[in-house]
């Protein structure tokens, strides 16, 4: 099957990209001035030769840079990304804690932006140059041009401070702080524990940051769907579809939309990848403990193992998203497979 070979080829490509990313991240963090021993061990541990030696052996600091890279990679493959200087915990555990929060938020934001982006884009294209089209386009331009941090501050001010209908910050209200996480995903954990009150509370905390994040993406999706749909609507094969006696809904939703989705798909994938990589500003403003927040804190404290870990994770997420987009291309557009 064409699709299978195509997917396998894409996965091999993804592995190569990830190797490239780790090399780049490794070289950059090694060229940054500063003694990794001092940075990672701290004063007290530095004075103990045994600890220093053990650390040097573990990370191969007495070897050449290529060897160090291989050691880092073999540790990485065993799930060892080193220890965060700031939190004093294994980086992998930190990532396990912060990534699910971002994943839930990004997924909700992406779903919202795709649903509304598609609906608005289709309406806008079908009713082009009518009043509703102008209205939708005005909304989408507003969404795109409004800076996320400003939108975040304003919505927090309006819905939390003035109207008091949205929660302020965090992933859950303080009442639920005792709830122990299994997977780290609040939505999954609360459903599997049968705690729908927690599910409701988690969604309640997510909705405002998700809407803020969805705003810009939704605007871009709306515009892309509109323009690619308009392009497709002037194609000969749509005339053929109408000549068959299909009704307008089938003509648009089946014959036109499927073709218009091809250019739009890239936007879906890129923006989802972008959101998954953490959205520093919005997560900081809503005090939402996600990957963006973690990366930000790590960068400001020069916590190199954590920065490396976050970089690699974000690259992985981005690559997997692109893989999914490519495979979806292959499913929708048969021409891509060959």
């Amino acid at each position, binding site marked *: 099957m064409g699709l299978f070979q195509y997917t396998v080829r894409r996965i091999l490509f993804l592995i190569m990209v990830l190797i490239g990313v780790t090399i780049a991240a490794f070289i950059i963090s090694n060229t940054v001035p500063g003694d990794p021993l001092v940075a990672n061990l701290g004063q007290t541990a530095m004075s103990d030769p045994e600890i220093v030696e053990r650390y040097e052996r573990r990370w191969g600091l007495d070897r050449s840079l290529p060897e160090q890279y291989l050691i880092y990679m073999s540790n990485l493959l065993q799930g060892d990304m080193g220890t965060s200087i700031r939190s004093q915990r294994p980086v992998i555990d930190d990532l396990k804690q912060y990534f699910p929060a971002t994943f839930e938020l990004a997924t909700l934001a992406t779903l919202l932006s795709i649903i509304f982006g598609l609906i608005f884009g289709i309406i806008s294209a079908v009713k082009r140059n009518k009043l509703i089209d102008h209205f939708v386009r005005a909304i989408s331009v507003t969404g795109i041009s409004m800076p996320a941090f400003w939108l975040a501050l304003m919505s927090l001010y309006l819905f939390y401070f003035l109207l008091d209908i949205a929660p302020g910050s965090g992933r859950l209200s303080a009442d639920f702080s005792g709830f122990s996480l299994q997977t780290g995903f609040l939505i999954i954990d609360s459903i599997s524990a049968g705690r729908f009150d927690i599910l409701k509370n988690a969604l309640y905390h997510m909705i405002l940051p998700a809407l803020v994040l969805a705003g810009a993406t939704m605007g871009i999706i709306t515009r892309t769907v509109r323009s690619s749909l308009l392009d497709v609507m002037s194609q000969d094969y749509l005339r053929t*579809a109408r*000549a068959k006696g299909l009704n307008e809904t089938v003509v648009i939703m089946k014959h036109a939309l499927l073709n218009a989705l091809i250019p739009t798909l890239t936007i879906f994938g890129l923006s989802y990848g972008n959101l998954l990589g953490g959205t520093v500003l919005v997560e900081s403003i809503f005090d939402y403990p996600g990957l963006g927040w973690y990366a930000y804190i790590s960068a400001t404290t020069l916590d190199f193992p954590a920065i490396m870990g976050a970089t690699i994770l974000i690259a992985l997420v981005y690559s997997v998203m692109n893989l999914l987009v490519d495979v979806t291309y292959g499913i929708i557009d*048969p021409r891509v497979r060959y």
Partner: protein
Amino acid sequence: MEKKILEVKGLKTYFYTEDGIAAAVDGVDFEVAKKETLGIVGESGCGKSVTALSIMGLLESPPAQIAAGEIIFKGEDLLKKSDKERRNIRGNEISMIFQEPMTSLNPVLSVGNQIGEVLRIHQRLKKQEAADKTIELLDLVGIPLPERRIKEFPHQLSGGIRQRVMIAIALACNPSLIIADEPTTALDVTIQAQILELMKDLKEKLNTAIMLITHDLGLIAEVAQNVMVMYAGQIVEYADVDRLFEQTMHPYTIGLLESIPGVDLEIDRLDVIKGLVPNLYDLPQGCRFHPRCKDARTVCKEKEPKLYDLKGHKVRCFKYSGTW
């Protein structure tokens, strides 16, 4: 008298644009009888395709609008029908084959899906029934290995095969009338001959009436019984195919025939019709063809000729008015 399937009366299709009103079709009357093949000939922009799209109800409105006339199909005026009623006729009782097989099929849907769709909506066939019928149809239009082809996508097929697929879509519901708009123009010459053979074959098998739109008089001579020549939105000549070729009357038709290159004739230059098709926004006074006509006289510049009927051979030219 054979029973007529389609009767177009005084059809006027206008385009309302910012540049003004373009009378793309300006008072056209004709009939298509059961099993008849009517050829419609003319240069680009003469109104052939707009006539076809008016019958199909596929013109985009605005800017296009049918300003007057009747399109009577099986005794009922299509222009009085609702959108839904017209959809039920489209692709079912009247179907259309387009000029560009390369772009007329949807690139992301399989051949089987695109043919089967027509059967599912008009004949309410189930998925499997539609697939079986699709294989029959592909076989009918001479596509080898139909069981494999239904899973393929347009980009995997050659132009000739794609046009056969288009024909299969058009034939799917056994229509009473097929409108073929330049069905062979975009194809290689050898493929043109094959598609032409196929259409002649199918016509004999299925007895469908065909409106064949083309600028290729050779094609008309091969398949049509009657021919209608159009110029600037009007019919300028109408006759059965033998009379049209043997006793050509209108100077425009004569010009068209003379512009066909012949193999056996020893001439260096083709006789071409001078000038261009008139601008529909700015039609010449009098006869619309007079600026390009070799025989034009004063009367041609002043008055518009009507369509004179000479025992079934109709011609729009003062030469046949009896007072020339």
